[in-house]
């Protein structure tokens, strides 16, 4: 399988090490254009935009192309971030994968499950990674930001953060940063039922990094946390892992904002997740501010 960090950061000695080129699909939309500016300001190497009908124009000195294919040929980029509305996501994603994109950051919310599954299958065939849909993106603090997250909560460091929720990823990362736990990476899984990269897959991507610990921000719905807990046990992961789960007070069978945040029976309930985490020796914070305290306890005073 493609290696996330090789695509995202590269290897030392490469000409574009830590400066990997990124394409923005939907660069001229309100949302896409705003976040393109924000990403450029952070230092992300945005090399091309794609908006059908606006090829040949520029936005913030970034050339716009008609198709992803043209953008890829012109720039050699392997990363694309998609901002198009959910209805158009499937076609945009197919276009990107067919053009040779290897890392797809899928921002749109409300993508139908069937479309996400279709794209996922294509991504697998093309040996590409999809993060999202409905993700805030991914940030390696101080190096690259591909997403819609604000820059301020994040600080370079040695804790990996995986989150099923956007704003909670900011909230928890902020709390970590304030407590001097910087992040080596913060990655948004996405709040949808079907994730291009699951919590376990993301966990396996970050576990080999030189990190001190992992924070997993989850929520009710599905069984990602339960499976992760079992995975931590099975693979004998021995670095500290701390979790947070949102939605303990949520009623059953009500979709709590995120398409994926829904409890059926006991499937997806917070109790089920907390008890599995307990077996894996993963403490679960009651509130975001408690995350750094639990982490400090696990690390025995060692700071990230």
């Amino acid at each position, binding site marked *: 399988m493609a290696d996330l960090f090789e695509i995202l950061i590269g290897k030392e000695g490469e000409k574009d090490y830590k400066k990997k080129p990124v394409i923005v699909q939907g660069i001229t939309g309100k949302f896409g254009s705003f976040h393109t500016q*924000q990403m450029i300001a952070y230092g992300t190497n945005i090399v091309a935009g794609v908006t059908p009908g606006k090829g040949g124009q520029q936005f913030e000195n970034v050339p716009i192309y008609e198709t992803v294919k043209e953008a890829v040929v012109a720039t050699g980029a392997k990363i694309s971030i998609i901002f198009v509305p*959910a*209805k158009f996501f499937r076609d945009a994603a197919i276009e990107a994968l067919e053009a040779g994109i290897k890392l797809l950051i899928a921002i749109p919310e*409300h*993508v*139908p*499950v*069937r479309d996400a*599954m*279709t794209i*996922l*299958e294509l991504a697998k065939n093309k040996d590409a990674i999809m993060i999202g849909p409905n993700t*805030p993106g991914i940030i390696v603090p101080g190096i690259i930001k591909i997403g*819609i997250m*604000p*820059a*301020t909560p994040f600080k370079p460091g040695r804790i990996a953060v995986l*989150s*099923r*929720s*956007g*704003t*909670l*990823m*900011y*909230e928890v990362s*902020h709390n970590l940063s304030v407590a001097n736990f910087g992040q080596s990476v913060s990655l948004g899984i996405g*709040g949808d*039922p*079907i*994730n291009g990269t*699951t919590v376990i897959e993301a966990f396996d991507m970050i576990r080999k990094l030189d990190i001190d610990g992992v924070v997993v*921000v989850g*929520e*009710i719905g599905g*069984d*990602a946390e339960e499976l992760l807990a079992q995975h931590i046990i099975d693979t004998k992961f021995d670095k500290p892992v701390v979790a947070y789960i*949102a*939605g*303990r*007070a*949520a*009623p*059953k*069978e*009500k*979709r*709590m*904002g*995120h*398409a*994926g*945040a829904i409890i059926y*029976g*006991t*499937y997806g309930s917070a109790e089920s997740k907390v008890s599995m985490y307990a077996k894996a020796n993963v403490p679960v914070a*009651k*509130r*975001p*501010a408690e995350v750094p305290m639990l982490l400090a306890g696990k690390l025995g005073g060692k700071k990230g």
Partner: protein
Amino acid sequence: MRLLEYQAKSLFAEYGIRIPKGVTSTNIEQGRKDAKVIGFPFVIKAQMAVGGRGKAGAIQKCHNADEFELKYPEIMQKVVKGEKTKAILLEQMQEYKKELYLSMFLNRSKRCYTVIASSEGGVEIESVKNQVIREVGLGHVDKNTAEEVAKSIGLKDNSIEEFVNLVQKLSKLTIEKEAELAEINPVAILNDGTLLALDGKVIIDDNAMFRHDELRKFQEVSELEERAEKSGFSLVELEGNIAVVGNGAGLVMSSLDMLSDHGGKPACFLDVGGGATTETVYDALTLISKMKKVKGILVNLYGGIVKTTTVATAFIKAYEDKIIDIPVFARMSGAEADKSKEMLKDSRTKMFDTVEEAINAAVIGVNKSG
């Protein structure tokens, strides 16, 4: 979107899945006419989007007109796990040999559809042992797989072919209607070996509704939820008296949890989406003002990029326009927080640095006002 039983069954019928003869009504006058059409005895079934109806007495047999006059209004008034009866289905009673379980289910962690079947039907699937589960990708079930499942749950003779047909019809429905779950529980094996769907549960992918105008007629949202959807918010109405507002589903859920931990009672879950502008917050306050039970509002916004002053402006404007007159307990992280506090100094919106402080103040403030 979770369909009611009679709605799910109308989809079943559309796909050629056999269902018992039934009629749906929402008042007893219509019910009496329906009773004549079906003929005694029949089953009176409350239509509500929740499991466990049988145990709760929301499904009852009815043998004659006297019983009908008693039971129809009783079942119409039923509330099960907070869900009210939306309509009443009168359904012909069936004689059968055995009950099975069958569903097409979107398995999120495996990221594929699964066929789940069992020789034990009529109980909640969590408690069913002997489940036969087969992964079927995007939902297509070929004949061999269906036949193998039929044999695995012990079917024999003509029931095998019946079951293969049933699975394939259910699979087609799941794919074409973009269902996350299509469940028949129980499937009845009649005395002649043919199969009949006695109950139905179908959940449609809300995000795919833009491709399914034909299903709009089943969509039932409260007026407030509809307004929320138009503004791009998600709203879940709850029982308490403190409205909970924030940007991002996770953050709002988190606020809801902490409020409950502190003894507060959430009146709603309102996610205004990732951003937070003067307009969105003003719209959210307008929406909340329509909920009479709300005595206070807890706001938890993670700004970051957004200036908190733009949000503060919304509160001031909402008071000026007399949209709201109840206290707001707000936590807004982001730029210019000090300036926002200054702006809100003389208003009924109190700003706090942490959500914990805002929650404490909200619980105390709302309890005091009764």
